């Protein structure tokens, strides 16, 4: 028995859920309701991925965004007491310049990689319903440049997080 739903209805339902939850996330008075709405919105986006024949991406969207990012947000909401923000928020001398330097370096390296390797990218995207076993070869073989740029961005973000979390002794 075929229980599948026409794609239009799926799209409308998913869009409604995602957008309503996103609006709720911004408008909720209680922060924790905002976080829950954000989770629902992420699940809606995962639904989009599944309906677009990318179930692997959809599942990872749930695992990473709902399972990890929303947990972090919940932690922050629950553990950080609401305090008045410090008036003096300007970075110490040198930190701002170093940040600019790093950002510039990152931008230049990304631009360099893209300029060197960009023309080698294939013009046609891979077929839509790619089997998972082909995901690795395609990502590392056909599209190494976006992968490297992602890695650079992530390591930049990681360094930034380390700097922010560092406690001066």
């Amino acid at each position: 028995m075929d229980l599948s739903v026409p794609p239009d209805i799926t799209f409308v339902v998913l869009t409604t859920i995602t957008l309503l939850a996103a609006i709720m996330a911004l408008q909720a008075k209680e922060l924790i309701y905002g976080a829950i709405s954000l989770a629902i919105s992420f699940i809606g986006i995962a639904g989009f991925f599944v309906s677009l024949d990318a179930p692997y991406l959809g599942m990872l969207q749930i695992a990473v965004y709902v399972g990890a990012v929303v947990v972090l947000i919940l932690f922050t909401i629950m553990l950080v007491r609401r305090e008045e923000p410090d008036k003096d928020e300007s970075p110490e001398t040198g930190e701002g310049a170093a940040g600019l330097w790093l950002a510039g370096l990152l931008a230049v390296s990304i631009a360099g990689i893209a300029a060197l390797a960009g023309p080698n990218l294939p013009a046609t995207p891979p077929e839509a319903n790619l089997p998972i076993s082909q995901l690795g070869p395609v990502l590392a073989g056909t599209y190494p440049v976006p992968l490297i740029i992602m890695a650079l961005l992530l390591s930049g973000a990681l360094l930034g997080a380390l700097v922010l979390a560092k406690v001066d002794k």
Partner: protein
Amino acid sequence: MVNLPTTPADIIPFIIAVVTSHTFITLVIFPGLIHLTVVVMFLTWYERKLLARIQLRIGPLYAGGPGGILQPIADGVKLIFKEVMIPYKADKPLFLGIPLSLVFLGALPFAVIPFGQHWVIANLDVGLVFIFAVTSLFPSMILIFAWASNSKYPFLGGLRSLFQQVAYEIPMWISALSVVMLAGSLNLVQIVNAQQKIWFIVPAFISFVVFFIASMAELERLPFDLPEAEPELVAGWFTESSGAIFMVIFLALYMKLYLMSSLITVLFLGGWWGPAFLPQPIWFILKALVVATFIIIPRGVYARLRVDLLIKIGWTRLLILALANVFITVVLLSTGILSAWGL
């Protein structure tokens, strides 16, 4: 495909066609709703009886049936008729809604668990990732419930539960990685089919041990039951739950116990494969119940771990062991030692 009825005479054949369809039977009877409910109720009785035997007690006896096997029904009726106490200033919608969603999340992964070659609700290509995604929602749900109770001990228990489950998720799924490499698929049906000649517990024994220990921590079973440590936190994150709310949480926890035992059966113990004198689903359920027994027994045997030991074991032992077995699997696969078993 069943056509919708157009005349009144078509209604009866339509209903018969729906009820006998593969979707309906797998969804509602087996391995869906009815089977899940029965097994989960059996598990609650089984745990009490088993622990009683370990501690030289008799356990449930008077509720009827052999060995008081109808005890879960009596428990359920009792809990339904109890008053549901909602703590002062608790967040009411979340306090009532999260337990229901916990049951839903506990039942959802069974949609992809294959109880036999054809006894599976949805033969999903990314079945393992689906279970990973769904189970990763548990910790945040628990933390939200603990927060919604607006009470000190549930909140402490919820934080502990979150830390523990997030920490042990990592070694657990890395150890599942070597199974995925051996089977060459994330589809649970194909993973079981790849174990027809040799169960993955043999080439991936370290992974099996790591997965077993990590799933015990995920289930908050002794010796990892810090989130509900009775002497410290009353009953952990569900301290404030009472009556029907408690029953629903209880069901969700046992559903997760059955889920983890089924998952270990699928990944390491050859799923439904066994000598042909029993049908495939029976083999599967038997194996899952044996695994559940081994998850339950430590509760009657071991003491609770300290928090620092828990974190140390998770990050410095299990994670390393899981990664080591991934490496071993790469060596085994690339040298072709396992080719005799079609891997």
